[in-house]
């Protein structure tokens, strides 16, 4: 039935084998990006430039400020004398964060009441700002607790002393340093695989079109399905190798724990690879030149990345974009990867994303087969 798949598969492997540059492209950039992302793209923030305005001039206010400077998270670059200087420091980007302690701060604390600490962050880098805000909360809370127990000690015997409340909310994911990376590295498996595989396959057919070999294939009795499937198999095998490489780096180098079932991860990876391959092949059937395929790639891959939940939470996207994520295979693969790596959940929980990827792969592959015309028009 599909006897002509085999010569296509053999041919693709031979071409891949002879193409030294392709092998380089498959391995080196993958490793480099993996290391780059693994180290650079973390949620940790150090040495945030900070401006301080202390209008209370109390022992308590000085104590609070010293807590900010002592742990390396914040560098006080400016001790301001007025609110205006604070505004200027933020405007000129001299400081990313400003802390303002108003007069009466110590007074309130001594009475056991909530004492406000005003924090101004430079929202133009919202990522850093958010993270910094989280640290401010943590430090303020630590200070408040210590102060409360200290106060309790001093007024021993006096009952009914109200616990001092924490005014800034603390974000739990900033507490544990390693969690950021554990969260990131599994996500990288998905995004890197998508980029590599779509890039590889997007050129698979266009290249032959430009070389002229496609015309030779079109006049032969080969069926579109045989041709497309023949192109799929070799890239699928290559893709599995890529996934294995990235997973190995994640587990062995970055020490990300893998607590789930490897077979579930394998199944998820296979389905994800099929969807990525089919996407690449579809691009390839739609484009007439490699140049077009390149631009199409560029145009498509970013939305896939953004709408996957890798970096930005899907639940905070507008409804329309949330719907778009439902056709994004990367979205489902990330669920499978994080589920198997970090949570250790199995098929019972992960079958919906697996089924979704299978459906996407089927639709895309079928479309590329139907799109592939044995004609130059």
């Amino acid at each position, binding site marked *: 039935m599909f006897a*002509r798949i085999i010569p296509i598969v*053999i*041919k693709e492997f031979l071409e891949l084998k002879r193409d030294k540059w392709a092998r380089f492209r498959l391995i080196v950039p993958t490793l480099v990006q993996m290391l780059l992302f693994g180290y650079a793209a973390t949620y940790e923030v150090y040495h945030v430039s900070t401006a301080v305005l202390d209008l209370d001039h109390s022992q308590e206010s000085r104590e609070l400020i010293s807590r900010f400077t002592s742990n390396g998270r914040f560098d006080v670059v400016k001790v301001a004398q007025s609110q205006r200087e604070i505004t200027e420091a933020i405007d000129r980007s001299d400081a990313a964060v400003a802390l303002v302690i108003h007069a009466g701060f110590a007074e309130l604390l001594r009475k056991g009441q909530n004492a406000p600490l005003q924090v101004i962050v430079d929202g133009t880098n919202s990522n850093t700002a958010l993270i910094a805000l989280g640290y401010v909360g943590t430090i303020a809370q630590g200070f408040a607790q210590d102060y409360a127990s200290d106060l309790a000690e001093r007024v021993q015997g006096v009952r009914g002393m109200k616990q001092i409340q924490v005014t800034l909310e603390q974000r739990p994911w900033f507490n544990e340093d390693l969690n950021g990376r554990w969260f990131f590295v599994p996500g990288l498996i998905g995004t890197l695989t998508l980029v590599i595989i779509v890039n590889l396959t997007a050129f698979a057919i266009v290249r032959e079109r430009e070389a002229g070999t496609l*015309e030779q294939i079109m006049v032969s009795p080969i069926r579109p399905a045989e041709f497309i499937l023949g192109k799929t198999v070799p890239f699928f095998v290559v893709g599995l190798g890529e996934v294995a490489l990235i997973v190995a780096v994640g587990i062995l180098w970055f020490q990300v724990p893998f607590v789930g079932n490897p077979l579930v991860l394998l199944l998820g990876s296979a389905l994800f690879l099929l969807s990525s391959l089919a996407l690449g092949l579809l691009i390839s059937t739609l484009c007439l030149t490699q140049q077009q395929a390149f631009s199409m790639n560029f145009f498509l891959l970013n939305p896939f990345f953004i709408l996957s939940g890798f970096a930005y939470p899907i639940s905070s996207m507008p409804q329309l974009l949330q719907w778009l994520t439902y056709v994004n295979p990367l979205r489902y693969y990330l669920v499978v990867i994080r589920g198997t790596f970090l949570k250790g959940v199995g098929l019972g929980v992960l079958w919906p994303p697996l089924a979704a990827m299978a459906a996407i792969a089927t639709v895309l592959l079928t479309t590329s087969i139907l799109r592939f015309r044995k*004609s130059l028009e």
Partner: protein
Amino acid sequence: MSGDRQAEPQIVAENLVKRFGSFVAVDGVSFQVGRGEVLGFLGPNGAGKSTIIRILCGLLRPSSGRALVAGIDVARDPEGVRQCIGYMSQKFSLYRDLSVEENLRFFGGIYRVPNSELPERMRFAISMAGLGGREKALVSTLAGGWQQRLALGCAVLHRPPILFLDEPTSGVEPTSRRRFWDLIHSLAADGVSVLVSTHYMDEAEYCHRAMLINQGRLIAVGSPQELKHSALGGKVLLLECESLGPTLAALAHAPGVLDCSVFGNALHVLVSDAERSLSELPAYLEQQHLRPDRLERIDASLEDVFVQLIAVDSAKQSAAA
């Protein structure tokens, strides 16, 4: 395969028209190719040779008209003709990173040549291409002539009765071109119908019949002999002289001269009456202070015929436009 079907046409084109937008690339072309016949397509760049061949292979749909290949209407059933045809596209289209053997095996595979016959056919193709001993060589390392012969070998691996060759000898050195034509003729002798395009006018001599195409239209067809004797409408004189340019300009207005063109470092002059022009032209040129070194009657070559016909046709076209 019986000899009595010699007359039965394998390729029939009836009034083929192909438009790309408003541009007419093929304009009402009709012809036939019989079993075992070699038909040559000649014409300048952009004449429409490749477009006609692609229509016949089912790669393009004709805007109107009909193409029958092996008795099958190509536009209706393009898949029906695939197994019967071999095609060499104008652009070299084997896999350069694959060896000679790997390419042959690949094409054997997609045409489903039975495993029992494949080794024998591959041996045939390799010896035909003269590549014995270089089976493991990558195609990219072969010289042009070898590449083209290997491409022909791949195109005939499944023994198609009909062969379309689009400029198979372009960019190949003359001795290799000669060898290639010998291969075409040995295939034709086995009953294969061959439609071959070329822009080397001299290669028309190797065809059973040649067709001249200009701007999408058929302007002459016939055996090389027929074309030389009837298509020209005059006799050819050879004129050698020092100053080609002024002589060419002077001859344009000379009495009895139909046309004049440069061939190498001489002129070919088309005249209506050879004897009269031979006696009158030297005096006419003398008046203009031009002196030919040599003036004699020669047999028209196909190149004379084609250059003349294309010049006349193009002039007619631009006059009409």
